[in-house]
């Protein structure tokens, strides 16, 4: 009974909101000929379908980690993933152990392991597979949330700068020149120092520095569309500025925004590892590939070399980013064959 009550909270609702939103966008966009054509081309591209499947698996893993509840008031909050691992009798060990090993590594007198770990355990005895899968949730959360911050910001500023021009444009251009003048890593460091560590804060830092590039792109595109006949015609018919921007210009910008967001998503995931390395990223205790890779640089000099921690995290990260890059390229080719990079 308590479990049922604890499952009904906002953080558990969020994944469903995201899924509903994506589904809504898909269904709506399919009605437009441009997108229908793009989906048709995508469905013919085998590599794109494969990468989409990979991304779906990552999303599914992230999903199992993001739904969590308590069994009773005294037991800890456990996600679906935790529960699956508990069912599989994966427990915390004393310290490092190699994949599939029966004894711990790096101790003068190796202890027998309590369970069986496909990818071994780390220094604190945690199962590396579980940590890697947790990192997947963190990565998807950072990528998704940052995109959710960047896109509206960039669209708002980019479209209004391009559409209104003059004073509005000057002010917005000034703001983004200032932000672009600071190397983004420095601004991210500053923001995180002030805000403190945390997944949401990382997204804020990445988002507040990342909107500039997309904003410049959107502004440029809006400038092109502003002088097209269909916008002039709409103006002549007395359509309000707000409606022209949201109903006429915005749909034309969507392809380019979606393509660059897909490619930027992988950039955000990669940034997390760097911020974690600098010690201002994801706090300890939240599974993160950055923290795992960061820990590994000390482990490589140990004897025997602790390689499984580093390998698992970087492989998981690599596959996600590779899939995103390939899918982004395929999407670009599908949406606009003229943009094709030969």
């Amino acid at each position, binding site marked *: 009974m308590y479990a049922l009550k604890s499952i009904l909270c906002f953080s558990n609702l969020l994944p469903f909101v995201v899924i509903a939103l994506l589904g809504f966008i898909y269904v709506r966009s399919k009605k437009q000929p441009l997108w229908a054509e793009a989906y048709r081309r995508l469905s013919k591209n085998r590599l794109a379908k494969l990468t989409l499947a990979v991304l779906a698996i990552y999303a599914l893993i992230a999903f199992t980690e993001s739904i969590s509840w308590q069994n009773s008031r005294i037991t800890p909050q456990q996600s679906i993933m935790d529960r699956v691992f508990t069912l599989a009798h994966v427990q915390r060990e004393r310290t490092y152990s190699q994949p599939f090993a029966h004894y711990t590594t790096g101790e003068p007198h190796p202890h027998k392991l309590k369970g069986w770990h496909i990818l071994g355990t780390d220094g604190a005895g945690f199962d590396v597979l579980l940590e890697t899968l947790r990192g997947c949730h963190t990565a998807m959360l950072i990528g998704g949330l940052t995109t959710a911050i960047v896109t509206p910001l960039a669209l708002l500023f980019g479209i209004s700068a391009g559409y209104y021009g003059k004073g509005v444009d000057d002010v917005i251009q000034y703001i983004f020149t200032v932000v672009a003048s600071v*190397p983004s890593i420095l601004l991210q460091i500053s923001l995180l120092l002030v805000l403190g560590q945390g997944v949401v804060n990382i997204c804020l830092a990445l988002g507040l520095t990342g909107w500039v590039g997309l904003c410049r792109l959107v502004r440029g595109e809006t400038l092109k569309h502003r002088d097209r006949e269909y916008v002039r015609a709409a103006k002549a018919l007395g359509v309000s500025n707000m409606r022209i921007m949201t109903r006429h210009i915005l749909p034309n910008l969507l392809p380019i925004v979606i393509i660059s967001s897909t490619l930027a998503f992988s950039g955000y995931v990669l940034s997390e590892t760097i911020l974690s390395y*600098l010690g201002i990223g994801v706090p300890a205790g939240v599974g993160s590939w950055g923290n795992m890779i960061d820990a590994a640089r000390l482990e490589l000099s140990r004897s025997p070399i602790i390689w499984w921690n580093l390998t698992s995290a970087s492989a998981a990260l690599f596959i996600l980013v590779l899939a995103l890059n390939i899918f982004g390229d395929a999407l670009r080719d599908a949406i606009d064959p003229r943009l094709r990079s030969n």
Partner: protein
Amino acid sequence: MIGYIIRRVLYAIPILIGVCFITFFLFYMTISPQDLARRNLSAKNPTQQQIKAWEIQHGYNKPKWQQFVDTTKGLFLFDFGRSDSVGGGKIITRLKQSWLPSFEIASLSFIASLIINLTAALIIAYFRGTYLDTFATSLCVVMMSITYLLYIIAGQFVLGRLMRISPIAGYLPGWESLRFVLLPVIVAVISGFASDTRLYRTFILDEINQDYVRTARAKGVSESLVLFRHVLKNAAVPVITNTVSAIPALFLGSILLENFFNIPGLGNYLVDAINNQDFAVVRANVFIGAIITIVGYMMTDIGYALVDPRVRLE
């Protein structure tokens, strides 16, 4: 030309004031000076007097606008004041010591990258449409998907520990320093190779399909001259744009590389400051980073004008 530079410098002033405002807003408006003092004073439970003294020493007792004017003026005069952390040495002294190693790494890897990536892109473009092209572009996508962190770790492990090409970490001044920056430079070049080469290839292929290339071929110009003479000069414009966007990336590179290879440069100074929550140092670094970026933009425009006769500096 000189008029243009003067105008650009004047235009940089409001931008830099904006940068100062952002950092001021971040560091002074969101955190109270008492908190700052507590974080940075060595005593575990500082007395009210100690906090007051620290605030006065670092100028945090004045009104906010006065503080903004003071710090901004200081930054513009390259008078960065004292560090917020324990000891509180002069920031400028540390900057003077640490700019050279950073400059060495950044400039060497910048130049090496540009030459290597452009050559690779030209070679790939020469073999466009063949299996070599497909292989190279796929390799680029794969290499782009690897985190920078892994390049550093693997670079140090393979080049330093296994192959013993150069010292694993550390730094000595003078010519000796080249031995120590070699490893970071190699890592920087390799890690940036994929994305730049892929991009340059696109730029070059965009040019290869232009009409003037057909004209050059119709004149009987050989394929290699077409590529290295006609195409390269035209592709230089987008390449220049891209190299400037690499300047902030150089910062990121130097921060990670210096810290990892234990080289006493600006990046290492910054990481120390992050660990000590030393805002004054971070502020100074942000300001210097902004100046370098703005100078980079300026050099791009000058580069355009040198390469493309259609561009006038106005």
